[in-house]
């Protein structure tokens, strides 16, 4: 069995007293209860997962949640399932999984497990147990309302589980989370459902959610169904589903070791796993500096922070690592896993400027901004609008009897997330005060030109489509990208440094 070489000696929300053994592609690796398969793999120094589907390119773990595009698993056993993100699968003893190259297999055997369903009515349904959702649930519970609180994670807290310095009412935020859950679970009219994902929102606040009840247990109790489908009719719905971090699009951004900054932070703080020993951070906003401080706090080397913004924000200046502003990553190198990267200045015109510099690293954390998770809002015909400052689509007018709060509404400051959640819960008392979060100003970078001078040269050709499609309301930016394409293809700077034969037929995974 491999050792947990990348596990930090302290910290994390894992049960170090116990050890479990799982099989990944036939290799035994050790983990602790509280790990996901992805965090266990990373703790054992394994970041590579199944190769890409069409071109067979090496792929690694990118994210830490449901947004994971690469680490897809086939789970062996009685209830064999495929295409399960390793980032969402809790480890249990003797769990056996195989990594997939983007294509699963249906189990030939009949599924003998029991699945049931339950119909409930509630005054307030809160979807998401992050700071905004918890504030909404607590505020609603204190008004005497019947409350149902759903969250897809094994424990409540949302983004606060991945944090370190965040505070609520002057104390560590997780203390506040614990006190909120203690108060909610003693309430007679409150139902808290962990491991539950709301996946459908229909007329008159009818919400469907699936609860995973036994997969995380070593021994499934005989009288408990494997999954339960909740049919929930709510008077009011509070959508506090959070936001997904966006990756950056540059040549070689799918190389194992390139991860989302928020995911690196989640592995660091929540699972006590370091994604690398020498981590470069590339960002377009302030959120990645929380990661920089945490990495340095754990003694992990951060050789450089590559910030796309031309100004060094106050947050960046205080982070303690060398910051290169107005720059972007242009290429990565490494046999499979990343071993070095190149970065260069990026002019306002979208073209590269200055010298291309190389830096050695074994992980690259990228943050290309944040996209609110608006799916449930959109399912109810809720409209969205393009927010130029956030560079993201945010909910416009709310659906009747629904509230979208927190980062799902484009609000990334902890204090205002708590205030919005508290107000949506229906309380007129003073909301808890938070400290932390915030994105600062954002410089959206949709497509980084290749070092050869062509945006989307080589591997990035297919990226061009997805990158321009991401900003349909930004005509100016699209035009700029096209101009860069035309001028640079007319006068190539140098020979392509990354020689990859053909563009892949698929869009890049990240």
């Amino acid at each position: 069995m491999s050792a947990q070489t990348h596990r930090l000696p302290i910290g994390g929300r894992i049960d170090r007293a116990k050890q479990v053994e799982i099989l990944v592609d036939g290799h035994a690796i050790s983990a602790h209860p509280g790990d996901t398969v992805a965090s266990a793999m990373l703790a054992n120094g394994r970041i590579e997962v199944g190769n890409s589907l069409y071109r067979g390119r090496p792929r690694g773990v990118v994210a830490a949640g449901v947004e994971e595009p690469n680490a897809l698993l086939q789970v062996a056993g009685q209830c064999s399932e495929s295409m399960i993100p390793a980032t969402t699968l809790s480890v249990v003893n003797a769990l056996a999984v195989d990594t997939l190259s983007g294509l699963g297999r249906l189990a030939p055997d009949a599924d003998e497990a029991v699945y049931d369903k339950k119909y409930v009515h509630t005054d307030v349904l809160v979807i998401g147990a992050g700071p905004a959702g918890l504030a909404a649930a607590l505020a609603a519970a204190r008004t005497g309302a019947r409350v149902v609180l759903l969250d897809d994670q094994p424990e409540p807290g949302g983004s606060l589980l991945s944090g370190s310095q965040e505070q609520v009412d002057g104390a560590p935020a997780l203390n506040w989370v614990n006190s909120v859950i203690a108060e909610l679970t003693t309430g007679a009219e409150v139902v808290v459902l962990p491991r539950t994902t709301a996946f459908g929102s229909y007329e008159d606040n009818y919400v469907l959610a699936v609860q995973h009840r036994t997969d995380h247990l070593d021994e499934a109790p005989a009288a408990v169904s494997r999954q339960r489908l909740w049919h929930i009719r709510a008077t009011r719905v509070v959508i506090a589903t959070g936001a997904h971090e966006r990756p950056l699009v540059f040549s070689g951004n799918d190389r194992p070791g390139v991860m989302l900054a928020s995911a690196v932070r989640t592995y660091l703080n929540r699972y006590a796993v370091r994604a690398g020993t020498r981590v470069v951070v590339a960002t377009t906003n302030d959120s990645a500096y929380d990661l920089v401080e945490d990495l340095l706090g754990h003694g992990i080397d951060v050789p450089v922070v590559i910030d796309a913004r031309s100004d060094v924000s106050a947050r960046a200046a205080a982070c303690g690592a060398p910051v290169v502003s107005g720059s972007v990553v242009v290429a990565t190198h490494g046999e499979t896993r990343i071993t070095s990267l190149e970065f260069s200045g990026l002019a306002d015109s979208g073209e590269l400027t200055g010298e291309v510099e190389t830096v050695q690293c074994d992980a690259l954390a990228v943050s290309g901004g944040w996209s609110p998770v608006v799916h449930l809002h959109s399912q109810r015909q809720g409209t969205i609008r393009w927010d130029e400052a956030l560079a993201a689509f945010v909910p416009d007018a709310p659906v009747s009897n629904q509230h979208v709060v927190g980062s799902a509404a484009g609000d990334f400051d902890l204090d205002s997330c708590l205030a919005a959640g508290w107000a949506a819960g229906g309380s007129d008392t003073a909301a808890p005060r938070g400290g932390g979060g915030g994105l600062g100003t954002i410089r959206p970078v949709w497509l980084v030109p290749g070092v050869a001078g062509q945006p989307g040269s080589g591997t990035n050709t297919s990226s061009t489509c997805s990158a321009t499609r991401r900003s349909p309301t930004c005509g100016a930016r699209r035009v700029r990208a096209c101009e860069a394409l035309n001028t640079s293809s007319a006068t190539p700077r140098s020979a392509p440094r990354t020689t990859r034969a053909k563009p892949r037929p698929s869009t890049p995974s990240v």
Partner: protein
Amino acid sequence: MMLLPCPWCGPRDETEYHYGGQAHVAYPTNPSELTDEEWSRFLFFRDNPKGPFAERWVHAIGCRRWFNVVRDTFTYEVLAVYKPSDPRPDITTGAPR
């Protein structure tokens, strides 16, 4: 799933009801004098607005009685519920969207 308020039983899930089509389609006073086209229009032609629409529903697995609903066909919002003997409420605009 819509939540429809039966005037007699209260709010129930949509699955308890059957749909009865457009409300207030009067039977012709002298059907034998209609042309084929007029008769077919009475039988088959119905309004299809985007917005408030008066329609009939029956609480099929409840009280089994018919009633009328004014419903916004875009937002699916129920704007009024009334008994078949009552006149259509004067609702021309749905919820602002």
